[in-house]
């Protein structure tokens, strides 16, 4: 099984102009940025897309100034939150959205869940491509057993048991990290 590239390694490669690494960095953090904008701050799709592009433009621009390469995730999280708040404030001035409508306790809880989800997602990289693919399709893309079977050329009747085995594998992987 191929060893997963750490966040720090990815940042280092990006800083050296490695475009493949940049693609992977965007892929790795895209769900996190998207979920913060849409789930935590409930931005409308158009605003969420602006924030999404703005976050990655800033990350690309300022990657060299990051104090610790390992801190990329909290940095991206903080940057996304700040830009979402700015967007809501601007919307509030225009009478569209009132930032006060977002309850702080609920927001903190959602952000904590998303951080936890990112940790679980990082574990996916260690369970192999086959498990990552099947778990991602079922839980994140909400695909049916039939669609997954067709896409991965597997009998639909075996998908449930494969999902179960992959979940167990992921749990063991996550426990090994604790």
């Amino acid at each position, binding site marked *: 099984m191929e060893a997963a590239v750490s966040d720090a390694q990815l940042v280092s490669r990006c800083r050296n102009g490695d475009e493949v690494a940049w693609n992977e960095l965007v892929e790795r953090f895209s*769900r996190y940025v998207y979920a913060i904008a849409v789930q935590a701050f409930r931005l409308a799709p158009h605003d969420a897309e602006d924030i999404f*592009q*703005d976050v990655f433009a800033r990350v690309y621009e300022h990657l060299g100034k990051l104090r610790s390469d390992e801190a990329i995730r909290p940095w991206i999280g903080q940057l996304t939150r700040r830009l979402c708040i700015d967007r809501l404030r601007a919307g509030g001035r225009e009478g569209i959205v009132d930032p006060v409508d977002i309850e702080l306790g609920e927001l903190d809880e959602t952000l904590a869940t998303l951080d*936890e989800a990112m940790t*679980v997602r990082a574990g996916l990289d260690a369970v192999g491509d086959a498990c990552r693919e099947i778990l991602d399709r079922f839980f994140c893309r909400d695909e049916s057993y039939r669609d997954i079977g067709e896409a991965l050329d597997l009998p639909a009747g075996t998908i449930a048991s494969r999902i179960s085995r992959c979940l167990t594998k992921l*749990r063991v992987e996550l426990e090994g990290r604790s």
Partner: protein
Amino acid sequence: MTGYDEERIAELLRALPAPPDSWVKAAQELPRARAEIGEILTRLEADAVFRAALVADLESALVAEGYEATPSVVAALRLQLGVD
């Protein structure tokens, strides 16, 4: 991390759905867009009219000047120009 059963893991995986593919692709294009952005920034410094047009309406001004207003180019220029 302790105490994760399969149900909780599944719940956390569901918490991170994929964004639209087009958003991800646009962000991944950033390095390739840098050359174009660099050219635009150089022109901005020398051409006050062009700069004013971009600040007034970034996307329309880019298109009018023959540039492709991709999301990554627009986002990077917004950042440089300090416009929303």
